[in-house]
């Protein structure tokens, strides 16, 4: 009789903890597609990372080449040159010239940029 009661209780649920346990023990087999999709997602992520890395590398390369090729700008006592626009003569070249608080010989102060001006190499 006791044994029967015990067996009966094994087939019963009488607390929310048991409900929780029973529900937590449930399993549902996912379709095969799920694992394949996870793998595809991993590959996609790797490709995205790879493309980001190549974009970054290309950008760095461009910046590097630009810096390497950039000609040094000249500046002295208020003048600054952006040389290399057009070299016309051996002793002078065309350049844009920027005056910034530059005291000229006539006592005036020059400000602003002249886009093209013949500048001597050794002013």
């Amino acid at each position, binding site marked *: 009789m006791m044994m029967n009661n015990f067996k009966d209780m*094994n*087939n*019963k*649920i*009488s*607390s*929310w*903890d048991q*409900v*929780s346990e*029973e*529900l*937590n023990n*449930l*399993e*549902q*087999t*996912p*379709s095969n*597609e*799920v*694992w394949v*999709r*996870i793998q595809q*997602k*991993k590959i996609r*992520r790797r490709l995205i990372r790879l493309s980001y890395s190549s974009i970054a590398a290309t950008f760095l390369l461009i910046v590097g080449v630009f810096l390497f090729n950039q000609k040094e700008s000249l500046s002295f006592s208020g003048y600054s040159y952006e040389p290399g626009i057009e070299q016309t003569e051996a002793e002078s070249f065309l350049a844009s010239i920027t005056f910034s608080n530059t005291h000229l010989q006539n006592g005036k102060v020059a400000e602003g940029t002249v886009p093209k001006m013949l500048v001597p190499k050794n002013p």
Partner: protein
Amino acid sequence: MEESVLIQLCLKQDHTAQEFLYKKYAPRFLALILRYIPRRDDAEDVLVESIFKIFTKLGTFKKEGSLEGWMKRLVVNDCLMFLRKNKMITVGIDTLNEAKADLDDSFIMEKDVEALKRVIDSLPSGYKIIFNLYVVEGYKHKEIAQLLGISVNTSKSQLIHAKRSIRKQLGLTNLETDHSKTEDHDDE
């Protein structure tokens, strides 16, 4: 395979270890997701996201609790995110006193998990989510309130309504002697 070794191998993107982890836990996680999201296609979408997230975030697992517990929380969060995104969470606001009025938390039922599952699935979304979070996943009312953006009292009352509804639908018999054991512990 030992858990710490499994984690290390998964972190090294070892395909076999990841597959082992997937095969071990995916069926349980899918059953968990299906408790929140009944449509299987949607549930599998969430499973894909969750497993992928587990693989990428495994490095943040601090070994304070069990790995399964940590992964389950991640899966539950993904479920809630999906429900929120698809506007599938509706939690009613009712007062705790009203809900407590005729609560008798004791019961006895046949071990028919499928029937139980069907009844839980049929609950209104708010009841179902709170019941699952509190009773099945073991979240505290305070955590549920934070997760769902509701008050602690709303969480408590929705749980009482959910339990009452389950008992009613299953036609459960009261089990007076077991009352103290099954009383809803009032932790927050």
